[in-house]
Protein backbone atom coordinates (compact mmCIF):
# COMPACT_ATOMS: atom_id res chain seq x y z
CA UNK A 1 0.00 0.00 0.00
CA UNK A 2 1.30 3.45 -0.98
CA UNK A 3 2.41 5.55 1.97
CA UNK A 4 0.26 8.62 2.64
CA UNK A 5 1.10 12.33 2.45
CA UNK A 6 1.75 12.58 6.18
CA UNK A 7 4.37 9.87 5.87
CA UNK A 8 5.88 11.77 2.94
CA UNK A 9 6.35 14.78 5.25
CA UNK A 10 8.03 12.56 7.85
CA UNK A 11 10.31 11.01 5.20
CA UNK A 12 11.17 14.45 3.77
CA UNK A 13 11.95 15.69 7.29
CA UNK A 14 14.26 12.73 7.95
CA UNK A 15 16.11 13.29 4.69
CA UNK A 16 16.42 17.05 5.27
CA UNK A 17 17.69 16.44 8.81
CA UNK A 18 20.39 14.10 7.49
CA UNK A 19 21.35 16.38 4.60
CA UNK A 20 21.55 19.50 6.78
CA UNK A 21 22.95 17.80 9.85
CA UNK A 22 20.14 18.94 12.13
CA UNK A 23 18.18 17.16 14.85
CA UNK A 24 15.59 14.74 13.46
CA UNK A 25 12.98 15.62 16.10
CA UNK A 26 13.40 19.34 15.47
CA UNK A 27 12.89 18.73 11.76
CA UNK A 28 9.76 16.71 12.51
CA UNK A 29 8.39 19.75 14.35
CA UNK A 30 9.20 21.92 11.33
CA UNK A 31 7.40 19.47 9.02
CA UNK A 32 4.34 19.67 11.27
CA UNK A 33 4.36 23.46 10.91
CA UNK A 34 4.80 23.09 7.16
CA UNK A 35 1.66 20.94 7.02
CA UNK A 36 -0.22 23.69 8.86
CA UNK A 37 1.24 26.36 6.59
CA UNK A 38 0.26 24.50 3.43
CA UNK A 39 -3.36 24.96 4.50
CA UNK A 40 -3.20 28.39 6.13
CA UNK A 41 -0.51 30.33 4.24
CA UNK A 42 -0.78 29.34 0.60
Amino acid at each position, binding site marked *: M*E*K*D*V*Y*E*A*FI*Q*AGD*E*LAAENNVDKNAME*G*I*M*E*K*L*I*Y*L*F*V*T*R*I
Partner: protein
Amino acid sequence: MDIIKTKEEKFKRFTDVMTGKIPDRVPVLPNTETWIFHYAGISIKKAFAEDADLLFEAFKIFDKDVYTDGVLSISNTFPLNMSSKLGSGLYQVSDVGVQIHGSKGKNIEPNEYRELAKDPLKYFANVIIPKKLPIFKNSFENNVQTIKIAFQDFSEFGRYNAQAINRIENELGLPILVGTTNYISPDVVLDYLRDFVGISTDIKRYPEEVISTCEALYDWILRMFTSSNIPRNGKVIFSPLHLPTYLRPKDFEKFYFPFMKAYVEKVCVKMDYPIYFFMENDWTPYVDIMQDLPDTNNFIGLFEKGDLKFIKEKMKNKIMMMGGMPLSILSMGTKQECIDHAKKCLDELAPGGGYIFSTDKVLMSMNDARAENLIAVCEYIKENGKY
Protein backbone atom coordinates in the same frame (compact mmCIF):
# COMPACT_ATOMS: atom_id res chain seq x y z
CA MET B 1 20.84 61.17 15.14
CA ASP B 2 22.14 57.71 15.86
CA ILE B 3 19.97 55.19 13.98
CA ILE B 4 20.04 52.51 16.64
CA LYS B 5 19.09 55.05 19.31
CA THR B 6 16.20 56.23 17.12
CA LYS B 7 14.99 52.66 16.72
CA GLU B 8 15.20 52.02 20.45
CA GLU B 9 13.36 55.23 21.31
CA LYS B 10 10.59 54.44 18.85
CA PHE B 11 10.29 50.83 19.99
CA LYS B 12 10.19 51.92 23.64
CA ARG B 13 7.00 53.88 22.97
CA PHE B 14 5.26 50.60 22.18
CA THR B 15 6.81 48.58 24.97
CA ASP B 16 5.85 51.35 27.39
CA VAL B 17 2.22 51.10 26.30
CA MET B 18 2.32 47.32 26.60
CA THR B 19 3.86 47.32 30.04
CA GLY B 20 1.37 49.75 31.52
CA LYS B 21 3.69 52.76 31.42
CA ILE B 22 2.86 56.10 29.85
CA PRO B 23 5.30 56.74 26.97
CA ASP B 24 6.86 60.14 26.26
CA ARG B 25 4.22 60.59 23.60
CA VAL B 26 1.49 58.70 21.76
CA PRO B 27 3.12 56.18 19.37
CA VAL B 28 2.34 56.77 15.68
CA LEU B 29 1.57 53.53 13.86
CA PRO B 30 -0.64 53.89 10.77
CA ASN B 31 -1.55 50.52 9.29
CA THR B 32 0.16 51.31 5.99
CA GLU B 33 0.73 47.79 4.59
CA THR B 34 0.96 47.76 0.78
CA TRP B 35 0.15 51.48 0.51
CA ILE B 36 3.88 51.95 1.14
CA PHE B 37 4.74 50.28 -2.17
CA HIS B 38 2.20 52.33 -4.11
CA TYR B 39 3.54 55.51 -2.53
CA ALA B 40 7.09 54.52 -3.42
CA GLY B 41 6.11 53.51 -6.97
CA ILE B 42 7.59 50.03 -6.52
CA SER B 43 6.05 46.83 -7.90
CA ILE B 44 4.69 44.69 -5.07
CA LYS B 45 5.34 41.53 -7.05
CA LYS B 46 9.01 42.40 -7.55
CA ALA B 47 9.45 43.62 -3.97
CA PHE B 48 7.85 40.50 -2.48
CA ALA B 49 9.38 37.81 -4.63
CA GLU B 50 12.29 39.06 -6.69
CA ASP B 51 14.46 41.61 -4.91
CA ALA B 52 14.61 42.22 -1.14
CA ASP B 53 16.48 45.47 -1.80
CA LEU B 54 13.39 46.79 -3.60
CA LEU B 55 11.34 45.98 -0.52
CA PHE B 56 13.77 47.99 1.57
CA GLU B 57 13.76 50.87 -0.95
CA ALA B 58 9.97 51.19 -0.64
CA PHE B 59 10.24 51.62 3.13
CA LYS B 60 13.13 54.05 2.71
CA ILE B 61 11.07 56.30 0.42
CA PHE B 62 8.05 56.05 2.74
CA ASP B 63 10.10 56.74 5.87
CA LYS B 64 11.69 59.81 4.32
CA ASP B 65 8.28 61.49 3.96
CA VAL B 66 5.91 59.94 6.52
CA TYR B 67 6.73 60.06 10.22
CA THR B 68 5.95 56.83 12.08
CA ASP B 69 7.29 55.20 15.22
CA GLY B 70 7.30 51.85 13.46
CA VAL B 71 5.45 49.68 11.00
CA LEU B 72 3.49 46.58 11.83
CA SER B 73 5.06 44.34 9.23
CA ILE B 74 6.79 44.37 5.86
CA SER B 75 3.54 42.88 4.46
CA ASN B 76 5.31 40.05 2.64
CA THR B 77 3.31 37.42 4.48
CA PHE B 78 2.76 34.69 1.93
CA PRO B 79 5.52 32.47 0.52
CA LEU B 80 4.62 33.14 -3.09
CA ASN B 81 7.48 31.28 -4.76
CA MET B 82 6.69 28.20 -2.70
CA SER B 83 2.97 28.36 -3.42
CA SER B 84 3.43 28.93 -7.17
CA LYS B 85 5.39 25.65 -7.38
CA LEU B 86 2.73 23.82 -5.40
CA GLY B 87 -0.10 24.97 -7.65
CA SER B 88 -2.69 27.67 -7.31
CA GLY B 89 -3.06 28.59 -3.67
CA LEU B 90 -5.36 30.99 -1.88
CA TYR B 91 -3.25 34.06 -2.62
CA GLN B 92 -2.05 35.68 -5.81
CA VAL B 93 0.35 38.59 -6.16
CA SER B 94 0.54 41.22 -8.86
CA ASP B 95 2.36 44.52 -9.29
CA VAL B 96 -0.41 46.26 -7.33
CA GLY B 97 -1.21 43.88 -4.49
CA VAL B 98 -2.05 40.47 -3.07
CA GLN B 99 -5.49 39.11 -3.88
CA ILE B 100 -7.42 36.25 -2.31
CA HIS B 101 -9.19 33.72 -4.50
CA GLY B 102 -12.74 33.90 -3.18
CA SER B 103 -13.60 30.24 -3.60
CA LYS B 104 -10.48 28.64 -2.17
CA GLY B 105 -11.22 28.95 1.54
CA LYS B 106 -13.58 25.99 1.53
CA ASN B 107 -11.65 22.77 1.86
CA ILE B 108 -13.94 20.48 3.88
CA GLU B 109 -17.64 19.59 4.06
CA PRO B 110 -19.63 19.47 7.33
CA ASN B 111 -19.49 15.66 7.42
CA GLU B 112 -15.70 15.88 7.74
CA TYR B 113 -15.65 17.76 11.06
CA ARG B 114 -15.59 14.63 13.24
CA GLU B 115 -12.69 12.99 11.43
CA LEU B 116 -10.73 16.25 11.36
CA ALA B 117 -11.25 16.73 15.10
CA LYS B 118 -9.83 13.27 15.85
CA ASP B 119 -6.41 14.16 14.44
CA PRO B 120 -6.08 17.59 12.80
CA LEU B 121 -2.42 17.09 11.86
CA LYS B 122 -3.01 13.93 9.84
CA TYR B 123 -6.29 15.21 8.42
CA PHE B 124 -4.57 18.35 7.18
CA ALA B 125 -1.76 16.26 5.64
CA ASN B 126 -3.69 13.36 4.17
CA VAL B 127 -7.03 14.87 3.20
CA ILE B 128 -6.93 18.66 2.97
CA ILE B 129 -3.51 19.15 1.38
CA PRO B 130 -4.11 16.73 -1.56
CA LYS B 131 -7.55 18.26 -2.06
CA LYS B 132 -6.21 21.81 -2.01
CA LEU B 133 -2.95 21.07 -3.84
CA PRO B 134 -3.44 18.34 -6.48
CA ILE B 135 0.34 18.10 -6.94
CA PHE B 136 0.20 15.79 -3.90
CA LYS B 137 -1.99 13.26 -5.70
CA ASN B 138 1.29 11.78 -6.77
CA SER B 139 3.66 8.96 -5.86
CA PHE B 140 5.18 8.86 -2.39
CA GLU B 141 8.66 9.57 -3.77
CA ASN B 142 7.44 12.56 -5.76
CA ASN B 143 5.62 13.91 -2.71
CA VAL B 144 8.79 13.66 -0.63
CA GLN B 145 10.68 15.63 -3.26
CA THR B 146 7.90 18.24 -3.51
CA ILE B 147 8.00 18.74 0.27
CA LYS B 148 11.79 19.05 0.31
CA ILE B 149 11.70 21.71 -2.42
CA ALA B 150 8.90 23.53 -0.56
CA PHE B 151 10.98 23.50 2.62
CA GLN B 152 13.94 25.06 0.78
CA ASP B 153 11.65 27.70 -0.76
CA PHE B 154 10.12 28.49 2.62
CA SER B 155 13.55 28.81 4.21
CA GLU B 156 14.58 31.17 1.41
CA PHE B 157 11.37 33.18 1.99
CA GLY B 158 12.36 33.56 5.65
CA ARG B 159 15.88 34.69 4.74
CA TYR B 160 14.51 37.15 2.14
CA ASN B 161 12.23 38.80 4.69
CA ALA B 162 14.87 38.77 7.43
CA GLN B 163 17.25 40.63 5.12
CA ALA B 164 14.67 43.34 4.41
CA ILE B 165 13.64 43.64 8.08
CA ASN B 166 17.24 43.91 9.20
CA ARG B 167 17.90 46.76 6.78
CA ILE B 168 14.67 48.63 7.63
CA GLU B 169 15.33 48.43 11.36
CA ASN B 170 19.05 49.11 11.33
CA GLU B 171 19.45 51.51 8.40
CA LEU B 172 16.23 53.49 8.87
CA GLY B 173 15.75 53.05 12.61
CA LEU B 174 12.19 51.93 11.96
CA PRO B 175 11.03 49.06 14.20
CA ILE B 176 8.95 46.27 12.65
CA LEU B 177 6.43 45.48 15.38
CA VAL B 178 4.95 42.10 14.46
CA GLY B 179 7.21 39.17 15.29
CA THR B 180 4.96 36.35 14.18
CA THR B 181 1.34 35.55 13.29
CA ASN B 182 -1.02 33.07 14.88
CA TYR B 183 -4.71 32.31 14.49
CA ILE B 184 -7.54 31.66 16.89
CA SER B 185 -8.99 28.31 15.82
CA PRO B 186 -12.53 29.43 14.79
CA ASP B 187 -10.84 31.79 12.32
CA VAL B 188 -8.96 28.84 10.83
CA VAL B 189 -12.32 27.14 10.26
CA LEU B 190 -13.68 30.32 8.67
CA ASP B 191 -10.69 31.30 6.53
CA TYR B 192 -9.26 27.96 5.43
CA LEU B 193 -11.74 25.14 5.99
CA ARG B 194 -15.37 26.17 5.54
CA ASP B 195 -15.43 29.73 4.22
CA PHE B 196 -17.95 32.32 5.35
CA VAL B 197 -21.19 30.73 4.15
CA GLY B 198 -20.09 27.33 5.43
CA ILE B 199 -19.29 28.28 9.01
CA SER B 200 -22.32 30.56 9.26
CA THR B 201 -24.57 27.62 8.39
CA ASP B 202 -22.63 25.08 10.46
CA ILE B 203 -23.01 27.09 13.66
CA LYS B 204 -26.77 26.58 13.36
CA ARG B 205 -26.81 23.01 11.99
CA TYR B 206 -23.71 21.37 13.47
CA PRO B 207 -22.83 23.37 16.60
CA GLU B 208 -21.18 20.51 18.49
CA GLU B 209 -19.06 19.54 15.51
CA VAL B 210 -17.88 23.13 15.06
CA ILE B 211 -16.92 23.43 18.72
CA SER B 212 -15.14 20.07 18.92
CA THR B 213 -13.20 20.89 15.74
CA CYS B 214 -12.23 24.32 17.09
CA GLU B 215 -11.09 22.66 20.33
CA ALA B 216 -8.94 20.11 18.50
CA LEU B 217 -7.45 22.80 16.25
CA TYR B 218 -6.85 25.10 19.20
CA ASP B 219 -4.91 22.41 21.07
CA TRP B 220 -2.85 21.51 18.01
CA ILE B 221 -2.05 25.11 17.02
CA LEU B 222 -1.15 26.08 20.57
CA ARG B 223 1.07 23.02 20.97
CA MET B 224 2.94 23.96 17.79
CA PHE B 225 3.21 27.55 18.95
CA THR B 226 4.43 26.75 22.45
CA SER B 227 7.03 24.31 21.10
CA SER B 228 8.40 27.01 18.77
CA ASN B 229 11.30 29.10 19.85
CA ILE B 230 9.55 32.48 19.52
CA PRO B 231 12.11 35.18 20.35
CA ARG B 232 11.40 37.29 23.44
CA ASN B 233 12.22 40.58 21.78
CA GLY B 234 9.11 42.58 22.67
CA LYS B 235 7.60 42.15 19.21
CA VAL B 236 3.92 41.32 19.14
CA ILE B 237 2.17 38.13 18.06
CA PHE B 238 -0.43 39.16 15.54
CA SER B 239 -3.85 37.56 15.17
CA PRO B 240 -6.46 38.93 12.77
CA LEU B 241 -9.88 38.20 14.26
CA HIS B 242 -12.27 37.64 11.37
CA LEU B 243 -15.30 35.74 12.61
CA PRO B 244 -16.49 37.46 15.84
CA THR B 245 -18.43 40.44 14.57
CA TYR B 246 -20.39 38.27 12.15
CA LEU B 247 -21.74 36.37 15.16
CA ARG B 248 -24.62 37.36 17.40
CA PRO B 249 -23.26 38.10 20.89
CA LYS B 250 -24.70 34.86 22.28
CA ASP B 251 -23.00 32.89 19.47
CA PHE B 252 -19.77 34.83 20.02
CA GLU B 253 -19.93 33.84 23.68
CA LYS B 254 -20.38 30.18 22.80
CA PHE B 255 -18.34 29.64 19.63
CA TYR B 256 -15.53 32.18 19.79
CA PHE B 257 -14.90 33.80 23.14
CA PRO B 258 -13.78 30.62 24.98
CA PHE B 259 -10.91 30.22 22.49
CA MET B 260 -10.04 33.91 22.54
CA LYS B 261 -9.98 33.98 26.33
CA ALA B 262 -7.94 30.78 26.62
CA TYR B 263 -5.47 32.15 24.08
CA VAL B 264 -5.03 35.45 25.94
CA GLU B 265 -4.65 33.64 29.27
CA LYS B 266 -2.07 31.22 27.91
CA VAL B 267 0.02 33.28 25.48
CA CYS B 268 -0.33 36.77 26.88
CA VAL B 269 -0.57 36.19 30.62
CA LYS B 270 1.13 32.86 31.39
CA MET B 271 3.75 32.91 28.62
CA ASP B 272 4.11 36.71 28.75
CA TYR B 273 4.17 37.33 25.00
CA PRO B 274 2.58 40.62 23.82
CA ILE B 275 -0.30 40.02 21.44
CA TYR B 276 -1.96 42.24 18.88
CA PHE B 277 -5.46 41.47 17.69
CA PHE B 278 -6.86 43.12 14.60
CA MET B 279 -10.45 43.49 15.84
CA GLU B 280 -12.37 43.98 12.63
CA ASN B 281 -15.70 45.75 12.46
CA ASP B 282 -17.61 47.00 15.54
CA TRP B 283 -16.93 45.23 18.86
CA THR B 284 -19.32 47.31 20.93
CA PRO B 285 -21.90 44.47 21.28
CA TYR B 286 -19.21 42.19 22.77
CA VAL B 287 -17.56 44.41 25.39
CA ASP B 288 -19.71 43.04 28.21
CA ILE B 289 -18.72 39.47 27.34
CA MET B 290 -15.07 40.51 27.11
CA GLN B 291 -15.12 41.70 30.71
CA ASP B 292 -14.23 38.08 31.46
CA LEU B 293 -10.79 38.52 29.86
CA PRO B 294 -7.88 38.66 32.30
CA ASP B 295 -6.42 42.00 33.31
CA THR B 296 -3.24 42.69 31.34
CA ASN B 297 -1.39 45.45 29.51
CA ASN B 298 0.21 42.93 27.24
CA PHE B 299 -2.66 42.85 24.79
CA ILE B 300 -3.38 45.47 22.16
CA GLY B 301 -6.45 45.63 19.94
CA LEU B 302 -6.87 47.58 16.74
CA PHE B 303 -10.53 48.54 16.85
CA GLU B 304 -11.96 49.34 13.47
CA LYS B 305 -15.36 50.79 14.32
CA GLY B 306 -17.57 51.88 17.20
CA ASP B 307 -17.24 54.45 19.94
CA LEU B 308 -13.58 53.93 20.74
CA LYS B 309 -13.69 56.18 23.78
CA PHE B 310 -16.45 54.01 25.25
CA ILE B 311 -14.63 50.78 24.32
CA LYS B 312 -11.34 52.02 25.78
CA GLU B 313 -13.01 52.91 29.06
CA LYS B 314 -14.91 49.61 29.24
CA MET B 315 -11.85 47.51 28.36
CA LYS B 316 -9.47 49.43 30.64
CA ASN B 317 -6.77 47.15 32.08
CA LYS B 318 -7.71 44.40 29.61
CA ILE B 319 -6.96 45.65 26.10
CA MET B 320 -4.73 48.54 25.07
CA MET B 321 -6.39 50.63 22.38
CA MET B 322 -5.08 51.15 18.85
CA GLY B 323 -6.77 52.88 15.92
CA GLY B 324 -8.97 55.96 15.71
CA MET B 325 -8.14 57.48 12.32
CA PRO B 326 -10.71 56.55 9.62
CA LEU B 327 -9.48 55.87 6.10
CA SER B 328 -12.68 57.49 4.86
CA ILE B 329 -11.42 60.85 6.14
CA LEU B 330 -7.82 60.25 5.05
CA SER B 331 -8.92 59.39 1.53
CA MET B 332 -11.75 61.90 1.02
CA GLY B 333 -11.28 64.64 3.59
CA THR B 334 -9.30 67.83 3.52
CA LYS B 335 -6.02 68.15 5.34
CA GLN B 336 -7.69 70.25 8.03
CA GLU B 337 -10.50 67.72 8.49
CA CYS B 338 -7.87 65.02 8.98
CA ILE B 339 -5.97 67.07 11.54
CA ASP B 340 -9.21 67.86 13.36
CA HIS B 341 -9.95 64.15 13.63
CA ALA B 342 -6.40 63.37 14.76
CA LYS B 343 -6.89 65.99 17.50
CA LYS B 344 -10.13 64.23 18.50
CA CYS B 345 -8.18 60.95 18.79
CA LEU B 346 -5.72 62.61 21.16
CA ASP B 347 -8.43 64.30 23.19
CA GLU B 348 -10.56 61.18 23.59
CA LEU B 349 -8.17 58.25 23.51
CA ALA B 350 -4.74 59.40 24.70
CA PRO B 351 -5.52 60.46 28.31
CA GLY B 352 -4.12 57.97 30.80
CA GLY B 353 -1.95 56.18 28.24
CA GLY B 354 -2.75 52.77 26.77
CA TYR B 355 -3.25 54.23 23.29
CA ILE B 356 -1.47 53.86 19.95
CA PHE B 357 -2.51 56.17 17.11
CA SER B 358 -3.38 54.21 13.98
CA THR B 359 -5.73 53.99 11.06
CA ASP B 360 -9.00 52.12 11.47
CA LYS B 361 -8.28 49.86 8.51
CA VAL B 362 -5.35 48.57 6.52
CA LEU B 363 -4.11 50.82 3.70
CA MET B 364 -3.84 48.52 0.71
CA SER B 365 -3.89 50.82 -2.32
CA MET B 366 -2.96 54.41 -3.05
CA ASN B 367 -6.60 55.52 -2.96
CA ASP B 368 -6.94 54.43 0.68
CA ALA B 369 -5.31 57.67 1.85
CA ARG B 370 -4.17 60.90 0.29
CA ALA B 371 -0.46 61.11 0.97
CA GLU B 372 -0.62 64.72 2.18
CA ASN B 373 -3.35 63.78 4.65
CA LEU B 374 -1.47 60.81 6.09
CA ILE B 375 1.73 62.84 6.36
CA ALA B 376 -0.19 65.64 8.11
CA VAL B 377 -1.87 63.48 10.77
CA CYS B 378 1.31 61.55 11.59
CA GLU B 379 3.19 64.80 11.99
CA TYR B 380 0.35 66.24 14.07
CA ILE B 381 0.38 63.32 16.51
CA LYS B 382 4.16 63.44 16.74
CA GLU B 383 4.10 67.13 17.62
CA ASN B 384 0.99 67.19 19.79
CA GLY B 385 0.82 63.74 21.34
CA LYS B 386 3.29 64.42 24.15
CA TYR B 387 2.28 63.32 27.64
